[in-house]
């Protein structure tokens, strides 16, 4: 208190001094603070804030917390990360008050609750308007994030600018001038000369061949290839080699591995139990094929981002399946948690990984740094992060039937068209048949009444007499009588009202007619009232009967091409009676044409709780909604499965999220409510994915949230048509009532010609009745059936033919499933529980991203993809990719930080060369092969790896490319080379992965069955990648752990590498196989075999010393095995040891 008193005495004069001046500047909304109020502020409030809050929330705070400052009114009103701290006049809405009361999410100050009187003081002050003199505001903009300034100041955002190579300076020796054989060389040479460096000499031919063969295919050249190349004197030898290598399918296998490093490719989800990522290998094969067929990189990129949305997807040239859609599988390669306790956080983490991989891979940007705050260095705002994240929010996961989806969709479209015709023509046929019968129906009804009212409905004579009285067909009259007797018991029959009147004796007055119909009207009214209140206290989440086209999202075609409409019908196999089920309610309806869908052998289904039935190609999803109570009710008919994807979580193992899956049997196929209780997840976002259970005729009408079971909202529709014709006015007399009954039917028949949506459901109910009761309206039913058969026959045949075209079996692959458009709310400080403003989906602002149009029906990924590659707006895509190619061929990128072109990355050593290449790349059809060809045929790539001493002294890191780098092979290439020389290599192309071999040291939960030690001889790219069981050989040789983009592998040097090459049973066994293969060549003597060995392993012949060393070793080692000197060179053991030595020489694992 002593301190407080001091402050007051010090501050008081200042407050009084400032008073009048301040008043004018005070916030008008808060009213004019009185002098007394301001005095109170300075006396009490400011000291209190200073004492309790300023250490974290003021300009003088060492570290400003939550971005909130309480030392200025403007700042306090603007608030911090979580919004305004105060609402003058309303303490209850003020975050500050909640915090000091310890009532909300924040409990401030953190060290302990304030004494009650201080809380009261602050509360009252805010209630009184939070009077605060403005004079104390010293605006201190703490270095605001300036995106534009950052964009302008960093090289990577600038457009690609081509500066053609400059002529070399005067006096450059001719030898150097002629050294450059391509523009690439000219750029390199210019920089070398500027630093007084000279390029290294050309490498030896064989060195170059080994280099280029490994770089392009990841395999060593065969002796035959070496001979052919060395012997080629045409002057075109290099080009021929490069063209041959680029055509080889090994090219795609090798370069696909580079790509898989970027997209954290793996075939399991990691985490606790390492569940399978189904069919991930299909994506790997897609990449291999795309690289081999040199798909232009811009298309490759578009396919990754939005391959599922391309109007004309790329197809496999032979098998015809949809290639483009497979690209989207990369989004789903991340590690997934199977039972996250906090699904919101889990979703945020999954999406973060997707944004991270996307932005690093394609843009060389670390966008995910902006998850919690604007990027610390780059022109990337937090808004940018959530703008990208929104695309993912509007997109989901599926296993797509990529082999058949497009075909079946076309079939479904033709089926829909054929059914539209059938509907038109069959209803027309029915109308033609019954037109006359409808006109004279009132006469029949009156005659039938005569008979029934007389109490003799079954009396043949009475029937004949009644018929004759009005000149009617007696057989038809009989049918009408029989129907009326039955309809009397069915209150929903269109003739029920008339059936009742038939029981009114004599010739009733208008009052009697009205009286007879009164209870009926009450009954109908009751039903309508019940229907109207059916959904009271329910929250309608999804209405399938009114689902707009933009929300119609199904995987496959099992739910037709859109919702069924009232009056649509399923045809029976009997052309005489073609009307099967007539849909009286709209909604999503299962199409039996797509029953029996199956999964091809070798394809994997989803796992966990979603593995029990096939969802691929059989599923429809609702838009995403936010649950309030989580007590969901689905109005359905038929048997089905519902999977509620809450926060897009779908790896369902364990009990925690078990309720997100529901299943029910068909029962009597009547509409009913299915309950799914997700109240534990109340407040979360979810969408539901429905599919039929065992091809049951599932129909979906709506999803609501309600504490109790709702009623049937359609119950009133069945009586609506009846009510409209039998109100008191229209049915005054018997004649009028008969005419009303007929008009009721006539209206429905007319509606079928021109179906308006207004009273569709009620008209469809009558129409359904009408098509089943044609005999009541015609004299000769048999003749009608014949005519109907003629009308229906062709249509039925067409339907059958189309159904026969449906392809039932397909392989599955992971793909995007576009959801309905939704933007992402920013998470304050990256916390998914603190939702900030909604950010429109768009490309990064610094790359000219504009919010995508709100009319765009889906995620808008296609426009994101277009923003990436079209219009030359984006300088990064081409630069990043050519730099990656350069990195793999030269061992170091022009921008060494290949995944980070931001401020924290390194600047390009040769910016003009980089831009020239990027420009070429985009102008030459984005062809990866063309670019690689250009690079490996350059003089730069041809240089020897032996630099001059001066060059090493001046440029030890070889930034300026004075020589080629000596590079260790990637682990994959080392293993493949062993298989190749040992003869064990199985050259099979593509296909399901061979399970990884598990040594005794590879242990842990979810350990799968071990694969064969030698991987069946397949290339390493075909060996399974299980996140928790990565090949230990590959790990030791720096194959990255798949968690994010790794464009540049470490090249480490650890004892484990030596131990593997020395002692791993795989290596030893391959040495044995190689030895066997050499010994089998009987024509060769020992020296010949040693020669062959060197040629296979290193592409060259041994020197004499090497040959001597080898043959000496054979003899010596033979002796150690107890062999004599003649036996040694013929025994497999010393040979095997020699082969093993070859694997262990550095020449085997390095290229120079």
């Amino acid at each position, binding site marked *: 208190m002593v301190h407080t008193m001091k402050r007051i005495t010090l501050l008081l004069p200042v407050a009084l001094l400032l008073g009048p001046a301040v008043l004018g500047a005070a916030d008008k909304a808060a009213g004019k603070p009185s002098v007394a109020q301001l005095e109170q502020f300075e006396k009490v409030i400011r000291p209190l804030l200073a004492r309790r809050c300023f250490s*974290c929330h003021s300009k003088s705070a060492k570290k400003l917390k939550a971005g909130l400052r309480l030392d200025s009114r403007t700042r306090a009103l603007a608030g911090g990360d979580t919004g305004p701290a105060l609402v003058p006049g309303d303490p209850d809405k003020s975050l500050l008050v909640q915090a000091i009361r310890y009532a909300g999410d924040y409990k401030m100050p953190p060290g302990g609750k304030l004494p009650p009187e201080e809380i009261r003081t602050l509360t009252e002050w805010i209630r009184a308007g939070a009077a605060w003199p403005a004079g104390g505001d010293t605006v201190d903009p703490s270095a605001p994030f300036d995106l534009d300034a950052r964009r302008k100041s960093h090289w990577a955002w600038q457009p690609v600018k081509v500066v053609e190579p400059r002529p070399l300076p005067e006096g450059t020796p001719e030898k150097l001038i002629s050294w450059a054989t391509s523009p690439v060389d000219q750029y390199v040479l210019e920089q070398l000369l500027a630093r007084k460096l000279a390029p290294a000499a050309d490498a030896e031919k064989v060195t170059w061949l080994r280099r280029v063969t490994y770089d392009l295919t990841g395999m060593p050249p065969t002796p035959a290839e070496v001979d052919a190349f060395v012997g080629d004197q045409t002057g075109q030898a290099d080009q021929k080699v490069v063209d041959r290598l680029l055509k080889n399918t090994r090219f795609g296998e090798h370069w696909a591995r580079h790509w898989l490093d970027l997209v954290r490719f793996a075939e399991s989800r990691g985490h606790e139990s390492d569940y399978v990522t189904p069919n991930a290998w299909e994506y790997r094969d897609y990449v291999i094929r795309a690289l081999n067929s040199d798909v232009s990189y811009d298309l490759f990129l578009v396919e990754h981002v939005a391959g599922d949305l391309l109007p004309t997807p790329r197809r496999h040239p032979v098998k015809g399946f949809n290639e483009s859609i497979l690209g989207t599988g990369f989004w789903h390669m991340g590690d997934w948690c199977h039972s996250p306790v906090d699904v919101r956080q889990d979703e945020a983490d999954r999406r973060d990984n997707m944004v991270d991989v996307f932005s690093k891979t394609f843009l060389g940007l670390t966008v995910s740094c902006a998850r919690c705050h604007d990027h610390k260095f780059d022109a990337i705002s937090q808004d940018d992060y959530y703008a990208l994240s929104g695309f993912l929010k509007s997109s989901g996961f599926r296993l797509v039937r990529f082999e058949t989806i497009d075909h079946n969709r076309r079939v479904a479209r033709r089926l829909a068209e054929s059914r539209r015709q059938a509907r038109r023509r069959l209803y027309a046929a029915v109308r033609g048949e019954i037109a006359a019968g409808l006109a004279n129906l009132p006469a029949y009804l009156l005659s039938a009444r005569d008979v029934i009212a007389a109490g003799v409905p079954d009396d043949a004579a009475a029937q004949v007499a009644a018929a004759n009285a009005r000149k009617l067909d007696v057989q038809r009259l009989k049918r009408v009588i029989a129907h009326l007797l039955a309809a009397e018991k069915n209150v929903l029959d269109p003739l029920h009202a008339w059936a009742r009147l038939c029981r009114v004796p004599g010739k009733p007055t208008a009052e009697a007619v009205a009286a007879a119909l009164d209870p009926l009207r009450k009954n109908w009214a009751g039903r309508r009232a019940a229907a109207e209140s059916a959904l009271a206290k329910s929250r309608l989440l999804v209405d399938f009967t009114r689902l707009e086209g933009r929300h119609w999202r199904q995987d496959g075609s099992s739910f037709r091409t859109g919702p069924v409409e009232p009056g649509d019908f399923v045809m029976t196999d009997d052309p005489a009676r073609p009307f099967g089920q007539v849909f009286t309610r709209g909604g999503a309806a299962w199409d039996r044409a797509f029953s029996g869908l199956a999964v091809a052998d070798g394809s994997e289904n989803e796992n966990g709780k979603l593995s029990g039935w096939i969802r691929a190609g059989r599923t429809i999803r609702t838009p995403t909604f936010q649950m309030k109570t989580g007590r969901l009710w689905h109005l359905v008919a038929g048997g089905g499965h519902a999977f509620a994807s809450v926060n897009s979580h779908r790896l369902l193992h364990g009990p925690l999220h078990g309720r997100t899956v529901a299943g029910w049997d068909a029962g009597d196929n009547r509409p009913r409510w299915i309950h799914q209780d997700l109240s534990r997840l109340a407040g979360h976002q979810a969408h539901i994915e429905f599919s039929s259970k065992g091809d049951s005729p599932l129909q979906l009408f709506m999803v609501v949230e309600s504490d109790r079971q709702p009623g049937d909202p359609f119950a009133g529709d069945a009586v609506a048509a009846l009510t409209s014709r039998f109100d008191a006015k229209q049915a005054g007399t018997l004649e009028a009532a008969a005419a009303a009954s007929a008009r009721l039917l006539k209206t429905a028949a007319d509606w079928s010609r021109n179906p308006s949506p207004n009273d569709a459901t009620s008209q469809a109910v009558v129409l359904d009745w009408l098509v089943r009761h044609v005999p009541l309206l015609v004299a000769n039913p048999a003749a009608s059936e014949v005519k109907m058969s003629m009308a229906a026959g062709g249509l039925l045949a067409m339907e059958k033919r189309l159904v026969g075209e449906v392809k039932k079996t397909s392989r599955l692959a992971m793909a995007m499933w576009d959801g309905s458009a939704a933007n992402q709310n920013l998470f304050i400080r990256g916390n998914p529980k603190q939702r900030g403003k909604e950010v429109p989906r768009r490309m990064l602002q610094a790359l000219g991203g504009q919010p995508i149009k709100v009319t765009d029906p889906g995620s808008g990924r296609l426009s994101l993809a277009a923003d990436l590659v079209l219009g030359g707006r984006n300088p990064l895509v081409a630069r990043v990719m050519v730099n990656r190619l350069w990195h793999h061929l030269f061992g170091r990128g022009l921008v060494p930080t290949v995944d980070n072109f931001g401020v924290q990355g390194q600047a390009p050593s040769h910016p003009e060369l980089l831009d020239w290449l990027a420009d070429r790349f985009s102008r030459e059809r984005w062809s990866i092969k063309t670019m690689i060809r250009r690079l490996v045929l350059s003089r730069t790539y041809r240089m020897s790896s*032996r630099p001059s001493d001066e060059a090493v002294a001046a440029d030890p890191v070889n930034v300026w490319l004075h020589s080629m780098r000596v590079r260790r092979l990637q682990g994959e290439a080392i293993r493949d080379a062993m298989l190749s020389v040992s003869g064990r290599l199985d050259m099979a192309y593509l296909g399901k992965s061979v399970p990884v071999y598990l040594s005794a040291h590879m242990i842990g939960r979810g350990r799968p069955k071990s694969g064969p030690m030698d991987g069946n001889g397949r290339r390493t790219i075909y060996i399974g990648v299980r996140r928790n*069981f990565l090949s230990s050989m590959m790990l030791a040789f720096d194959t990255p752990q798949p968690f994010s983009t790794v464009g540049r592998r470490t090249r480490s040097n*650890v*004892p484990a*590498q030596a131990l593997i090459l020395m002692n791993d049973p795989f290596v030893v066994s391959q040495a044995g196989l190689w030895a066997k293969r050499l010994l089998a060549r009987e024509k060769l003597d020992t020296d010949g075999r040693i020669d062959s060995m060197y040629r296979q392993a290193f592409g060259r012949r041994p020197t004499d010393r090497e040959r001597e060393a080898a043959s000496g070793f054979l003899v010596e080692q033979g002796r150690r095995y107890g062999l004599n000197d003649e036996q040694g060179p013929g025994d497999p053991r010393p040979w095997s040891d020699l082969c093993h030595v070859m694997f262990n020489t550095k020449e085997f694992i390095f290229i120079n």
Partner: protein
Amino acid sequence: MNHCHRFLPAPTTRREMLMQAAHGFGGVALATMLAGEKTPAAVATGAPGPLDPKATHYRAKAKRVIFLYMDGGPSQVDTFDPKPALAKFHGQDPHRVFKVEPTQFNNIGKVLKSPWAFKRYGESGLPVSALFPTIGEHCADDLCVVRSMIAPFSEHTNANFFLHTGTGLQGRPAHGAWVAYGLGSECQDLPAYVVLNGGLIPSGGLDCFGSGFLPAAFQGSVFQPGNSPVANITPRESKPELQSAKLALIKRLDRNLLGRLGRVDQVESAIANYELAARMQMAVPDLMDLSDESKATQSLYGLDDSFANTRKYGRLCLVARRMVERGVRFIELTCTGGNGDRWDQHNRPPGGRVDPRSEATRAARRDADRVVRRVRADAVCPGRQRPGPQPLRIFDLAGRRWFTCRICPRGDRRIRIPCGRGQGRGLRPARDDAAPDGHGPQAADLSLLEPRHEADRRAWAGGARVAGLDVAWRRNGKSVDRRAQARACLTRTEGVHQAISASMTSPATSVRRKSRPL
């Protein structure tokens, strides 16, 4: 270089980095710094290896870490953190008493008080439950018990990743990998970071010991029980001379290659690597062979115990000691597998399934008493548990879940008083303890290994974020900014702190920290 905590450094070797920085000036500096301690590998090639020992800024109080990973985590309220208030709520619906977070199985029952009585031991008055009587008697004053750690995960795998790497997600470098990266190793015949596997690999698998984006050299090497503890350590050749002949020829051929290529660092290092590998082939069997230990020592470590798992675990402890003697930097012991011998208490209290009393007591005694006393006093030996159970009854008996204690022998005589208290009811640390969140253990280890902190620090009341740039110790309720000190460390330890800051902090933490600013 004020990175945000989510920044992943591009994989650059130290050498590469230093060579690039100021055109090789850094390389010169490094060579000078390490001049006194050139390893054979470095001598052979003139190039520093990744595991060469690195200088620390301050004289370290500890040089190595033995990390006893107790899978499952016995609850703090049953071990070192008495919660008498629980008795009051015993048998009640927890939802009325606590804020109950969902768990993976979510079968939460009733509140359960501790079935064990507590007693205070030693000068420091450390409370220890009847579950660990021997610990109390033997070494209460040698322990530092941190009772205020909290993990934002109530699910096995995330919690394991968090405990091992500081991030609840897969793919980050493990604590041991960081230590190896930052300090190198004093033993060039063995890996710097070893996991002695008792049989139970934690949920999350080998990724708990991974090197993440650090070079492969720093990943944990898992030593298995049995004859071939390390992958590929045993020569395949039937006679040693067969292998040495091969190695001789390899060397000869490689020398030829060097003649052709000129001096290429990485090829030279790869050649030197073979010498190291060959030495490891010798060193590992020597390490694992306990026959040179006296009968008394073997008995002290429980190698003659009647309980198989005790024998197994005792063996691991003894091997760990031998590793420490040989200079291995970071050793982690996992639990013995089989027989349900894990500390996980899903449904039952300790004593329900197997009696962990014997195991627990012995383990703890071994940890604290024998291992530490016998081993040179330069090892930090944290017995660290996976975030443990909350004091809730599940089914009839009990299981507890939430946060955890950490025991470590003092590396500093002044650390004596147990600090941090779980909140009265045992769910969270008491608010005024300023919980050093999940990074406390890493902070603790690093503080003993490297930078010197407050000399008169009486307690671990640390609001410690192991971000080298953002270490603020809370002492006596006041915040002491150590940033400047940390920054000084940074310049001398070549980015290790910066890297640590990248790995050891997680978004989840910053989220939590928001509502509980330090």
